C-alpha cells in the first residue's frame, strides 16, 4: 500500500487517475469499482448517490451507471469498459458518506462483468502517476489547494 500526501493507494487495485476511480479484480472474473481516497477528499462528504442502472444490465463503455453528489461536486460514475453491471452498492443510497469513510471497502460503488480487459494502470506505474498528479495544484471543496492532503474522518454518523 502506498501513502502519498496522506492518500492511501492499495497496491492490488487498478486506477483511472484522471477520474479518481479504482477497480478491484475479484476471483470470479468480476470487477469492483469505487472512488479513490483522492476522489473522496476532492469531493467532500457525499450527500446523495443514485443509480442509473438496475442489475443485471449490459452497458457500453462510458455509460453512466451512478451519480455521485456532494455539496459542491456532481459526477457520473461511468462504465470503464463494456460489460454487465451485476451489482450496485445499495447501502450507499442510505449512507452515501460510506464512500468517504471507507472508499476501498464498504464504500464500493458497483460490480461489473467486463466484456474486455480493463485498460487501467496498476502497481508502480499507478503509484508514480498518482504521485505526479498530487504534486499539482488542486481545486476541491475546500478551494484551491497547492498542498493537497487526503482527509480521513471517522464515521460519527454510524454511531
Amino acid at each position, binding site marked *: 500500500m502506498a501513502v502519498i500526501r496522506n492518500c492511501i493507494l492499495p497496491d492490488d487495485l487498478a486506477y483511472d487517475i484522471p477520474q479518481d476511480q479504482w477497480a478491484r479484480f475479484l476471483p470470479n472474473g468480476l470487477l469492483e469499482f469505487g472512488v479513490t481516497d483522492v476522489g473522496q477528499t476532492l469531493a467532500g462528504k457525499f450527500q446523495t448517490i443514485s443509480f442509473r442502472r438496475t442489475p443485471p444490465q449490459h452497458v457500453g463503455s462510458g455509460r453512466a451507471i451512478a451519480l455521485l453528489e456532494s455539496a459542491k461536486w456532481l459526477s457520473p460514475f461511468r462504465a470503464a469498459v463494456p460489460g454487465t453491471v451485476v451489482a450496485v452498492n445499495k447501502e450507499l443510497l442510505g449512507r452515501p458518506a460510506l464512500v468517504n469513510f471507507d472508499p476501498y471497502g464498504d464504500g464500493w460503488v458497483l460490480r461489473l462483468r467486463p466484456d474486455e480487459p480493463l485498460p487501467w494502470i496498476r502497481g508502480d506505474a499507478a503509484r508514480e502517476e498518482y504521485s505526479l498528479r498530487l504534486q499539482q495544484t488542486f481545486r476541491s471543496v475546500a478551494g484551491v489547494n497547492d498542498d493537497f492532503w487526503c482527509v480521513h474522518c471517522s464515521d460519527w454518523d454510524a*454511531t
Partner: protein
Amino acid sequence: MTATTVELFTHPMCSGCQQALTALRNLERAGRLTLVVTSLGSPLGRKRATEVGVSVVPTVRLGTELRLLDGPSDLRTLLAELNDTSSDDARSKAAPRGP
C-alpha cells in the same frame, strides 16, 4: 497544579470534529484543561499532524498518547477521564498537608 494539555486534531470537513471541539472548549472554559486545536485544513496543521503521526480526525493527543475519537462514545469516555483527572487534581490540592 497545571491543567492537562489536550491537543485536538480537526478538519473543517469532519462532522465529529465540531462536536469534539465544542465539548473540549467547554472543559477548557471550566479551567479543567488547556486545549490546543490543530486543523489539518492548513499546511502548518498538516505538518504538525505528520510529525506526531495523526492521519485520521478527530484525534486527541494527551501527552504522548494519540487517541482517535471514532464516535460520540469515544468522546464521552475521554470527557469522563478528563473530568476524573481534574477532580483528582482538585482533591489533591484541597487535601490537608502533613505536619
